[in-house]
Structure formats: structure tokens, C-alpha cells
């Protein structure tokens, strides 16, 4: 079977070159049976309906050019839709129409082209099938030897192996030269800040009023009825010029009021709540999502990201899910005017765990 590597040949009779071209590489543990079937060679070519029936061929041609004309129509329609369906009227419905009609025009343009070309290829173009001969990917032994010689020659000429002192010092220099670039990465964050310090403090301080999120209006203890829950930020956060989100990402708090009898409080934390009102960090101790789903009758908080559950009645201990630590509690009290205030900052870092935390 005469075959040309680059331009292929029409399929011919059975392949007889199998044995002649059999690779010499080891077959490993493959079982090569001497009694195996031989490749029967290519089956007879089966003509398509469009090869045999001129009517069907004509019809295929009509289909193809109709698809191309439809494609042109689609393009024109998309351009027209751009003008016919403007969206400047503050109207979401107009956006939808603009999106849909430009899109459907483009769809018709693209699918008409695509199906047309494929159908042309499958039904009309000559049904040619070729067989290319494969050669070992490694190339001929001569080429491989020549390549190996290039390396050995250049090694001999440069003395890369022989002059080991020069080579090793070169390797040392090559290892050292990217190090200054690594140092530059310190500039990715402000030079005068240290992460552990920042993570250990929030905006809460002694006397900071608890305010509603997002309005920033302070909240009175009297407004917190039993069973209710409020999203809280420190007073003043809403007015921050810079770093508002960074502070909020640490200082967000959930405020809940339970029947005092339902709260199981540790003796050292009894003074942290006020008449059944407790405040806990809203930032999950797992990876930092806001723990914002409160189930009132069970006093459970659920993190919507990874479903950690915390029991508010038991100092927000983890009762399910991947989080380990309870949510940090914010010690609160009431000031002279009846507003809820923080007794201090959180007594531990809030949010996800980090290496230096202990």
C-alpha cells in the first residue's frame, strides 16, 4: 500500500504493513497472541445518498445556501434590533428586549453559518477519506544521534561539565538573582502595618454605642424585644471616610434577646450580657462568611456558606459544621440614656483562624 506521509492517499486494500512497521519497543506485560485475528483492511466505501441521487444533492445545495441567507438575515436583524430596541429609558423590560433581540439575531447569524458550513462539508464536498502513515515520534536514529552530538559537542566546547567551579558558581548566581524580586512583594501591602496586629483589634472600644446596620442609628436596650435579632455595627462606622468595609468585616455583630432563663452563661461572662441581650461577632470562625441566619425558636445561628451552626444559648458553641471555635462574644452594657454600648473590644480576634492566633 503506497502511502505518503504528508498528503495522504485514498484508502486502498488491507493494510499489510503491520508486521513490517512493528515497533521494536518493549510491549511490557502485554500478551501478544500469535493466533490473533488480522486486520481485515478497509471495508468497501459506502456512497452517501447525495452521491447517488442528484435530486438529493440538489436539495442539500439548496439547504446550504438557504442557511447562509438566513445567516445574513440574522446579522441584519441584530443590527436592526440594536436600533429598534434602545435601553435608555430606565426600564428593565427594555434591557431584556434589547438583550434578547440582538442576541437572537446574532444566534441566527452564527447558527446559519455553522450548520451551513458543516452540512456543505458532510453532504456535498467529495467524501474523501485518507490514510496517513505514522512514524515513530522520536524520529530516525540518525536524527537522535545528531541531536545528542549537538549537546555533547557544546558541552565539550563550553566545558560545562569539566569546569565545575565555573558551572556551580553560575548555578548559585542563577538561584540568587530572583531573590530581590521576592522582596519586592512586601510592597503589596502597606509597609507600616503588620497583619497579626490588625487582625487582633476591631473598632469596638469601651463605650462605643451599638448601631443598626446599615443606617448607623444607635439602638436602645428597650428596642430589643425578646426573640428579636438585629444586625449591628459600631456607631461611627457608617460615617468613616476610609476603611469602612475593612472595619465592618471585623466589627459586624449580631444582637439577640433571649429569655434570660434560656441563656446558659459561664460565671465569668454573666456581666457580658444585659437582661438576656447578647452580642456575638457575625463573622464565621471557619472562613469568615457573615453568620446571618438566626433560627429564633432553637436559638441557632447558621452560616449560609458552609453550614456551621452555633448555639446562641451556649455562648455560640459550634453544634454542627466545619467551624471549630465559638463566635466571639462582645461584652455589652447600657449607658445612662438607655443605649446599648460595648464594654470593650472583643477579647479575642474575630473571624477565620490564622496561624499566629493562639
Amino acid at each position, binding site marked *: 500500500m503506497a502511502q505518503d506521509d504528508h498528503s495522504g492517499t485514498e484508502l486502498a486494500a488491507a493494510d499489510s504493513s503491520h508486521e513490517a512497521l512493528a515497533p521494536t519497543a518493549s510491549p511490557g506485560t502485554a*500478551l501478544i497472541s500469535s493466533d490473533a485475528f488480522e486486520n481485515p483492511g478497509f471495508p468497501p466505501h459506502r456512497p452517501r445518498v447525495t452521491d447517488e441521487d442528484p435530486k438529493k444533492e440538489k436539495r442539500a445545495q439548496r439547504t446550504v445556501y438557504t442557511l447562509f441567507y438566513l445567516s445574513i438575515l440574522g446579522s441584519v436583524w441584530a443590527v436592526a434590533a440594536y436600533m429598534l430596541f434602545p435601553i435608555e429609558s430606565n426600564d428593565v423590560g427594555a434591557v431584556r428586549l434589547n438583550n434578547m433581540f440582538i442576541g437572537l439575531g446574532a444566534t441566527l447569524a452564527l447558527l446559519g453559518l455553522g450548520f451551513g458550513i458543516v452540512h456543505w462539508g458532510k453532504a456535498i464536498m467529495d467524501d474523501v477519506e485518507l490514510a496517513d502513515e505514522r512514524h515513530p515520534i522520536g524520529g530516525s536514529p540518525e536524527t537522535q544521534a545528531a541531536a545528542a552530538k549537538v549537546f555533547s559537542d557544546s558541552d565539550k566546547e563550553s566545558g560545562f561539565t569539566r569546569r565545575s567551579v565555573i558551572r556551580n558558581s553560575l548555578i548559585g548566581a542563577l538561584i540568587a538573582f530572583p531573590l530581590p524580586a521576592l522582596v519586592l512583594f512586601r510592597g503589596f501591602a502597606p509597609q507600616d502595618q503588620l497583619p497579626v496586629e490588625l487582625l487582633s483589634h476591631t473598632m469596638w472600644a469601651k463605650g462605643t454605642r451599638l448601631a443598626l446596620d446599615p443606617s448607623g442609628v444607635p439602638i436602645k436596650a428597650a428596642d430589643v424585644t425578646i426573640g428579636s435579632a438585629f444586625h449591628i455595627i459600631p456607631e461611627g462606622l457608617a460615617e468613616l471616610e476610609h476603611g469602612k468595609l475593612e472595619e465592618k468585616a471585623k466589627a459586624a455583630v449580631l444582637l439577640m434577646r433571649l429569655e434570660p432563663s434560656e441563656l446558659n452563661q459561664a460565671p465569668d461572662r454573666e456581666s457580658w450580657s444585659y437582661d438576656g441581650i447578647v452580642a456575638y461577632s457575625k463573622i464565621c470562625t471557619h472562613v469568615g462568611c457573615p453568620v446571618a441566619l438566626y433560627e429564633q425558636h432553637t436559638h441557632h445561628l447558621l452560616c449560609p456558606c458552609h453550614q456551621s451552626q452555633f448555639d446562641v444559648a451556649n455562648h455560640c458553641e459550634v453544634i*454542627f459544621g466545619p467551624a471549630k471555635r465559638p463566635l466571639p462574644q462582645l461584652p455589652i452594657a447600657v449607658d445612662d440614656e438607655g443605649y446599648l454600648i460595648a464594654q470593650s473590644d472583643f477579647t479575642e480576634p474575630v473571624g477565620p483562624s490564622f496561624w499566629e492566633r493562639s
Partner: protein
Amino acid sequence: MSTAPSTQVTPKRSFTASASVYVNERTSLAGFVKELGRKAFPDHWSFLLGEIALFSFVVILISGTFLTFFFQASMAEVHYDGSYVPLKGVEMSVAMASTLDISFDIRGGLFVRQMHHWAALLFVAAIGLHMLRIFFTGAFRKPREFNWLIGFTLFILAMGEGFTGYSLPDDLLSGNGLRIIDGLIKGIPVIGTWTSFLLFGGEFPGTAIVGRLYTLHILLLPAIVVALIAIHLVLVVVHKHTQYAAPGKTQQNAVGPPILPIYAAKAGGFFFIIFGVLALIASLFTINPIWNYGPYDPSPVSAGTQPDWYIGFADGALRLIPPGWEFVWLDRTWSFNILVPLIAIGIFILLVVAYPFIEAWVKGDHREHHIADRPRNAPTRTAIGAAGVTFYAGLWAAASSDILATHFSLTMEGVIHALQAMVIIGPFVAYFIAKRVCIALQKKDREVVLHGYESGRIVKLPGGEFIEVHQPLDEYDRWKLVSYESYEPLMIRPNARGKITVGQRLRAGMSRWFFEDRIAPVTKGELEASHSAHH
């Protein structure tokens, strides 16, 4: 005149011919065309999966370039003043505001944005399916191991591209996604805290991350992706495509239509079909409606939010960790609730990367393989693949644990426990079932070759007995069922120094695991014997 030019252009040459001569005399492209133009390209529907990946990437490049002309990767705060009334006056970043402008103030902008997002989802999906096709048909075997590595790297990069892009609009969902990444990074021992600090340019969320991800998303990652795709395709040309066993197809040839014109027409047309289908989806189905979520704020969140599908397995892995896997030791925090998912996924990835090399080592087969396996003819490999898919599917399903619980009225805990079991026990079950099914199918193939297929013709014999006539296969149909090789378990033999090494023992053990249960293809002698038994 005697100074007439020696090369005279014949006036009869067609325009195409003279144009190609003009170009060739300046570029030497004729050799290239001669080399590639009529290459035979094997044809099969499963080979289209890689094309879908390639073409959806082209759509991503085209639509993404359009978006860069409008998107502004800045986290500076502005008050939104665009056409979408419900958000008027709301404080948000320039990134979010410009994304809303693309959606509501630029005609066709929403269409392009949605096409970009849908194409990205399809891109990762197509790569994943393409990899499964390669795996289950053994198309990673010599000489294609490097292309397996390159393709795998592309899969990881595609997920990176997806995640960085998802984070750019700076809406509530993307900010939450970044918050999770921040928490993950902080949980890594030694370097975690500083890595997060440097990545975000200070405290989370900071004002730098969107700009940084933008540089990765539109410059660094695409450059690497384009370069790797180029190498991937060059290697496909060098290796020539694999083909499935069929009469006339051998290890020494590549059979199919020529690149010009049929393959070019089919592939070129298929590009427009992919482009068109993405356009259709983008014009009819909303994706990532950031205007419903609002700008990022660390405090609010909505239940039932999901990452883009390809991040699901990582998110799910985080959810499946039981409570309490975090310890303080040596005055440092060891977050195994984060490390275990990272390590488990890391090992999974390493196994996927290393599989071609492991299988080659076990078999000791140094030949080139250009005929793709039918999955049933490599039962252990297929079973390993099924186990891997089950493991991935379990993690992936876990990312929707809350949705599963609410939609099917199950308890949150029940869903998580069931998925924990699926991730740990499921792979073994899937392995066992897949292996038995493969072997059963191989037995059926043998049966069909030896005794023919059921013709459906019932004949009553003179003695009153009814039989169904079995029709023998013709040699072409038979070839598909017998043209595979089986491997036998490795026999341990002492090496030249009379020793049996640990490596040799391990290889023999693996080889037994792979090939102890095996079905050999029917031989000519067996077929003859079966015929004579019938008569």
C-alpha cells in the same frame, strides 16, 4: 529586449493561484500547506469535546476583549448613577458600577457579558469532559503523556480564570467568594496570614484586590492559556490524532477526512455552532444578575448562594469536614478543617496528573499507542476513573448541601453525613461496579464473536424444537471486538544481582491488581473451535 525577466508570469493563472504564489514567494508557506493541508484527521463525536473547549475559549477572548473596553477595575467608592433605578445612589465600587453600566447602559452589553460568562462555564465543562474522554480511552498513553499534563494544567488555569473573572464585578456574591478564599489562605500554616495580607494589599477586603485579579484575569492567565493551547495543538499535529479500532485502522496509520477541505469545513462550521449556541443561551438566560445581589458588604448574605459550578468541588470539600478539626499546638493554630480539604484535593490532583506514568510503569509497555481503547477493554482503569468521578461528584454535590436539604425536605446534617459517606465509600462501590460491568461487557463481546448475534429469527426444527438462529459477525464487525490486547500480571523475577527489589514487588502487586481479572480477546483458534463444536 534581451533583458526580459527570466521568470515570466503566465497570464492564465487564476487570482487564487497568483495570490498564493505571491504570498509563498515572500513567506515560504507552500511547504507548510503541503505538510498540513491534506493531513488525515480521524473523526468521532467524542473528539469534538476538545473542540468545544477550544472554541468556547475563542468566544471568551472575543467577548472578553469587548468587555475590557468598558469595565473599570477600580475599587474606588462611587454613588451609582446609572439606569438601574433600584440601585440609584447606592454606594459601590467603580468596578461594580461599570459592570452595571455594561449591563444597563450599553446596548448589547448585557448580551456580551452573559455570553462571556456562559462561555466560561462551558469552557471548563468541556475541558473536564474532554479529559474524561482521554482518560477512559487511554489516549494519554505514550507518546501523549505531556499533552495530558498540559491539558491538566489548562484545566486548573481555566478554573483560575473563572474564579478571577467571577470576582471582578465586586458584587455581594463575588465579595463573599473572596472572603472564603481569604479565610482559606489564612488557615494555611506559616505563610497563610502574610499571604492573605499581601494578596489583599492589607486587611480584607482592601481596595487592591479587584485590580490585581484583573491583571491576572486579562493578562497573565490568558497569556499562559494561549501559549499552552498552542503547544497542546502542535503536539496533536506531531502525534497525529488517535483513532478508535476499526477495520483498516492500525497503529501505523491515521485515517480520516483531509484537513482541507472537509475537516476544515466541519471544524470551522462547528466553531460557529458553538458560538451560536452560546449566543442563544446568552440572549435567553440570565447569568450572574449582580443587580439583584448589590455591592459587596461584609455583613449581609443571602441563603442558598452557590459558586460557579467548577468551584463547587472545593466549596463542598470545606463543608464536609466534621466539627472540631482545629487545634492549638505549640502556641500556633492548626486549621485541619481547612488543611484536610486542601490536602485531599491536592492528592486527588496529583493522582490525576501521575496516572499515565503509573499505568505505563505497571505495564512496562514502551510502545506508542495510537488506537484508543474501548473503556471496557481496560476494566481496572475504567473502574479507577469511575471511582475518581464519584469522589469528585460527592464533593461537588456537597457544595449544594443546603439546597439539597431545602428542596428535598431533608435535614442539613443528614445530607452532609450522606455525602461524607459518598465521598469515602462511594469510590469503592463505583470501582467495584464499574469493573464488574466492564468485564461483563467483555464477556458479552466474546460471546458475540464466538456464537454470533441473535438474529431474531426463530426456526422450528423437524423434531419440534424451536431455536433462534445466531448470525455470525462479518470480519469487519468482528475486528472491533477482537482488536485489543490484554495484559498479564507481572511475574517477579530476581534482577541481575539475584535480588528482588521493593520497587519490583510493588510493581508486581500493582500489576496483579490491574490485570488479575482479565478477559482476553477471542483468537482465530477459539473461533474455529467454537464453529466445529456447533456442527
